[in-house]
């Protein structure tokens, strides 16, 4: 009898989820579905708003930048979402015995902080990050999201050139003493699974604690916890999808993101056409304009470019930073810290300057169906996704644009 037949079916199921990494396209599709659920119950996936909420709460402890009052993290859906992505990933890493405190060489931690700072500036100027302004913005049929994506793309290329130059000229910046703590020993480390169960129960109890008075938050906690876990298991990362075709030539990350975008595109379009969730004072028009930010075109282009620079240097986009924090990557803790600290500063001092310089025609809401109808907007976004898919697959086969 084979070994797999002797295994308890529940153990086999556990191994399916946590024995090895999931294909990125599986993660992309499930994340796309969960994103539709978030939109159905309130509004789509986003990360930078929640990170800024953390920063605002931090500064308000010292009486800074809190003139308008700051929503407590525990009352802010996206502040909690950020926490739950980290916790969900923590649970996923523990269940797969992949958790460890990984302290990189000093130069990498500096790059993490620098990359996080640039992501904070990009997300505040561009009104959204790689998730809100891209992974959710594109299927929300936002013209600004497409411009943001072009900005991301250029930023990633420039930043990748920098990383290749740095590795050639200053290899010592990513070398040196590193430390690894709490890693599971080979074929041992069941303590990680036990802690994982405790974290999972804590997430469920946290969700339950909101269930009487705030059902939306209760479901945000469950869905964002799942998003963190799935992102960790499939290693879903926007920067990988933009960078790898031009680095190693691999298309897997890009295909995963394209799959998630395609699934969300269908769900978001249905929600917007039928006005699902447009209840009370929330009009159908407001529902249509959900996640269509006033950043077309210049704010989206500038924000996307700066964010693209930052996420490549950091080695993690907004969600990539959060789930890597959950698996114990200290470099990404520095990125997350920088995003928390710099976002409120950028909102306070830089964004008003940019807004004053730019005319209204360079920072308005561009809702594609207003110009192309729903059919045309849907076809345009689907066409862009197919073109992107064709390009990454062709490039993977030919290596035409990959560095190695």
């Amino acid at each position, binding site marked *: 009898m084979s070994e797999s037949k002797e295994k308890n079916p529940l153990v086999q199921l556990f191994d399916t989820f946590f024995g*090895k*990494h999931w294909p990125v396209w599986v993660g992309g599709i499930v994340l796309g579905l969960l994103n539709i659920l978030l939109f159905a119950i309130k509004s789509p996936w986003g990360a930078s708003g929640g990170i800024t909420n953390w920063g605002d709460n931090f500064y308000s402890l010292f009486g800074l930048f809190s003139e308008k009052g700051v929503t407590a993290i525990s009352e802010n859906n996206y502040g909690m979402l950020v926490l739950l992505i980290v916790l969900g990933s923590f649970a996923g*890493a523990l269940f*797969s015995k*992949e958790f*460890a405190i*990984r*302290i*990189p*060489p000093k130069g*990498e931690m500096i790059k993490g902080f620098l990359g996080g700072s640039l992501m904070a500036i990009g997300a505040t100027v561009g009104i959204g990050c790689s998730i809100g302004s891209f992974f959710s913005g594109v299927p929300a049929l936002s013209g600004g999201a497409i411009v943001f994506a072009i900005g991301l793309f250029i930023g990633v290329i420039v930043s990748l050139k920098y*990383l*290749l130059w740095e*590795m*050639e000229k200053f290899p010592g910046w*990513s*070398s040196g003493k*590193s*430390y*690894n703590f709490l*890693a*599971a*020993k*080979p074929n041992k480390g069941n303590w990680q699974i036990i802690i994982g169960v405790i974290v999972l129960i804590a997430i469920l109890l946290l969700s339950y604690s909101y269930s009487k008075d705030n059902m939306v938050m209760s479901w945000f906690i469950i869905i964002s916890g799942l998003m963190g876990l799935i992102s960790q298991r499939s*290693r879903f*990362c926007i920067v*990988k999808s933009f*960078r*790898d075709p031009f*680095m*190693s*030539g*691999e298309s*897997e990350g890009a295909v995963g993101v394209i799959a998630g975008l395609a699934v969300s595109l269908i769900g978001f379009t249905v929600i917007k056409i039928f006005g699902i969730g447009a209840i009370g004072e929330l009009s159908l028009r407001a529902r249509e304009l959900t996640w269509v930010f006033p950043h077309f075109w210049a704010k989206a282009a500038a924000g996307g470019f700066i964010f693209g620079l930052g996420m490549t240097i950091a*080695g*993690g986009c907004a969600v990539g930073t959060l789930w*890597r924090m959950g*698996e114990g*990557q200290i*470099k*990404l803790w520095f990125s997350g810290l920088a995003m928390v600290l710099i976002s409120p500063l950028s909102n306070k001092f830089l964004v008003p300057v940019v807004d004053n310089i730019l005319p209204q025609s360079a920072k308005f809401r561009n809702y594609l169906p207003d110009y192309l109808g729903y059919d045309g907007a849907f076809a345009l976004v689907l066409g862009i996704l197919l073109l992107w898919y064709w390009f990454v697959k062709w490039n*993977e086969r030919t290596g035409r644009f990959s*560095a*190695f």
Partner: protein
Amino acid sequence: MELKMTLDCKGLSCPMPMMKVAKAMKDLKSGEMLEMFGTDPGTKTDLPNWCTKTGNEFMEMTDLDGGVTRMVVKKS
């Protein structure tokens, strides 16, 4: 066949281990082998995938104490 080069990528996260391996492989001749020590879980998937794409041979992967993984690649 003996190992030609050893890379220490411990503590590094994506994309640095893959960048270092790809750069180092350029200096190897066909048939020569490189071993890499890393701690990033993503590399366990990325390196075999990259070898499949580039035609290099992924020889071995061993989990060691301290969360370190040793991987060996042979240049095509």
